[in-house]
């Protein structure tokens, strides 16, 4: 069980200052529009926090583009809304100064890069699909499927409305260990420098019952690679020590989708 509540709280309260600017080529106005500054939760998703951004720039774009799907870009890279904001930031932070400058577009939606997201329900269904997948890894899908619709709603509304207590009242059940010690597998996504995403079944314990650490995870993912333990891993903007137990990390440092999102920032 996730017991270090102050850690959970600290992670939950992580925020990022972002400066949104409309792509100058899309401005349909004589003056250059004012940028919009927002402080957004790291754990949230862009579509849940950018209503204001859309409203702010709509009046500056031409009439026929008003219903277009808005999308965001950083340094020429389309930002994938289905990753939590903090994951996106950690991915690109090496060349970012705060506030993070994000460009807003209403034209030329990059079909081959981004998933469509016309309503919040799309985010909800993506979020629930991630939760279910994580639960399948941790508990063979037994916790989520035994929950009621209202519990699902409470998780989603807790995230959407940035309500820690509401979210964790239900999420704690997802973080409970089953009959055995630890989860069956640790739900994680490891983003490599070369843009690949690594998935692998990793157990939190060794066969002899010892707890595995972040270092063990790396050596399982990159077997035979002696440099694996030197990789720099970042999550939530911090570099967790390599001897941190995986089970503890999963319970305390997972994003609301119940996955650890780990970024290799230096190899």
């Amino acid at each position, binding site marked *: 069980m996730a017991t270090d509540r102050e850690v959970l709280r600290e992670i939950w309260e992580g925020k990022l200052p972002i400066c949104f600017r409309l792509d100058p080529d899309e401005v349909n106005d004589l003056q250059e529009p004012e940028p919009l500054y927002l402080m957004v939760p790291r754990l949230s998703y862009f579509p849940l926090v950018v209503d204001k951004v859309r409203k702010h720039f709509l009046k500056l774009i031409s009439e026929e583009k008003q219903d277009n799907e808005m999308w965001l870009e950083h340094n020429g890279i389309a930002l*994938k809304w289905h990753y939590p904001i903090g994951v996106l930031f950690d991915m690109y932070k090496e060349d970012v100064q705060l506030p993070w400058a994000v460009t807003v577009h209403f034209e030329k939606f990059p*079909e*081959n*890069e981004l*998933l469509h997201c016309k309503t919040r329900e799309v985010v909800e269904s*993506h979020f629930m699909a991630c939760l279910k997948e994580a639960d399948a890894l941790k508990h*063979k899908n037994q916790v989520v499927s035994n929950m009621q619709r209202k519990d699902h709603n409470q998780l989603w509304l807790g995230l959407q409305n940035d309500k820690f207590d509401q979210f964790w009242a239900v999420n704690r059940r997802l973080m409970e260990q089953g009959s055995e010690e630890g989860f069956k597998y640790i*739900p994680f996504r490891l983003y490599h420098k070369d843009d690949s*995403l690594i998935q692998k079944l990793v157990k939190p314990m060794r066969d002899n019952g010892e707890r595995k650490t972040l270092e063990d995870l790396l050596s399982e993912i990159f077997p035979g690679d002696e440099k694996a333990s030197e990789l720099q891993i970042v999550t939530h903007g911090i570099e967790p020590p390599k001897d941190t137990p995986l089970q503890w990390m999963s319970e305390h440092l997972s994003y609301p989708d119940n996955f650890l999102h780990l970024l290799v920032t230096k190899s």
Partner: protein
Amino acid sequence: MESSPLSWDEFLASSKELLCISQRLNDGWNWSDTQDGWGYLHKTELKSSSGNESADDVTAEQPGKTILVWEYHILYSPAYSCPVLYFNVRDQDGKFIGLDSTIGQLRFPAKTGRNYLSVVSQSEHPILRKPFCYLHPCHTSDLIIAAEKGRTNLLIGWLSCVAPIVRLELSLEYAKPNET
């Protein structure tokens, strides 16, 4: 339930068998390996846009109908220990036709009703990391556990259940026991 629906090794073996049959039929299934030791099956089909014709008819230009390129990928989901079908429908210029139009091209069983989003949605292809449509894997494991293990190729059994939804051509040859 302790038994896993389909292990990675079983997925590999079943895929091999499917590729063998495909090679004999020359119907276009291929395999791609990934760097980190996984891999997936894939196939491309051309179809006319509006529906009931078989793939053979598409060369005949018909007014009001366009030809669409269907790309099918079968990946292994380690979380659910089962196969997942990813697919994309593009026009001839390679442009994705959109989720709504894609859903319009699918053939859902009547009981699905209008609740399509519980069955199909857009997601990131876990290997290519590009947008693809996919059939939700939640119920796939039930489907596979229901099939009798060992007697049949579970991958082909599963594929024959989902193929009609995504209008994937699957020859009856795949149902025959493999003598090789």
